[in-house]
């Protein structure tokens, strides 16, 4: 399964809602405002690092670039993908669940 999260963890609880219920080994994509969760050095970085030990965590690079975070250090274990990678993840990982 691929879980998608698109809200900033500083404003909404979508990331926690996802992490609380994503089965181990599933993939999680952070995109739109959720890309802020992928950046190292924030208050949620440790939680995301821990998540990346149990899940395959990805971040959508175009959304980072749009927000001035293109060259930002990412939380350890989080892998950037572009839209082609997003499509590949949906194709490869089965059902897509959006945590809106």
């Amino acid at each position, binding site marked *: *399964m691929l879980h998608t999260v698109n809200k900033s963890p500083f404003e909404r609880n979508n990331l926690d*809602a996802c992490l609380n*219920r994503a089965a181990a080994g599933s993939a999680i994509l952070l995109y739109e405002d959720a890309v802020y969760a992928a950046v190292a050095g924030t208050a949620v970085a440790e939680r995301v690092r821990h998540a990346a030990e149990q899940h395959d965590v990805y971040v959508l690079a175009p959304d980072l670039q749009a927000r001035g975070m293109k060259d930002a250090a990412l939380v350890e274990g989080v892998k950037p993908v572009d839209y082609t990678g997003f499509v590949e993840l949906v194709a490869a990982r089965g059902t897509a*669940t959006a945590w809106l």
Partner: protein
Amino acid sequence: MSEEATVKKFMYLNRKAPHGTIYALEVLEMILVAAMFDQDVHVCFADDGVYELKKGQDAKGALEMKDFVTTYRALDGYDIEKLYAEKESLEERGLTAADLVVPVEVIDRAAMAALIDSMDVVLSA
């Protein structure tokens, strides 16, 4: 090749409270249509979604808004019988199954996670 129709596991995952936004109402409209398709339908309530089922709602009397919540009680008549609410979400909000307008199966977060993981299609709001 089998001529049997495809039956997929569909989940309608409600995570939003009922009246502050329109999502709960329009998800319910989706569920009523889904009932006509002979798919394996699961309706789940987690996070603020459990508030959709709270007894005693009176959006019409209080605000002239639509009392769509009563429709949940009709789901049984549409052969939609797999309703689940997450135990932790209820507890966090000081609710129990007795506070809800319809009988639901209360499952814990781990069981909810496993149920989600077993679905073919998840429609969430």
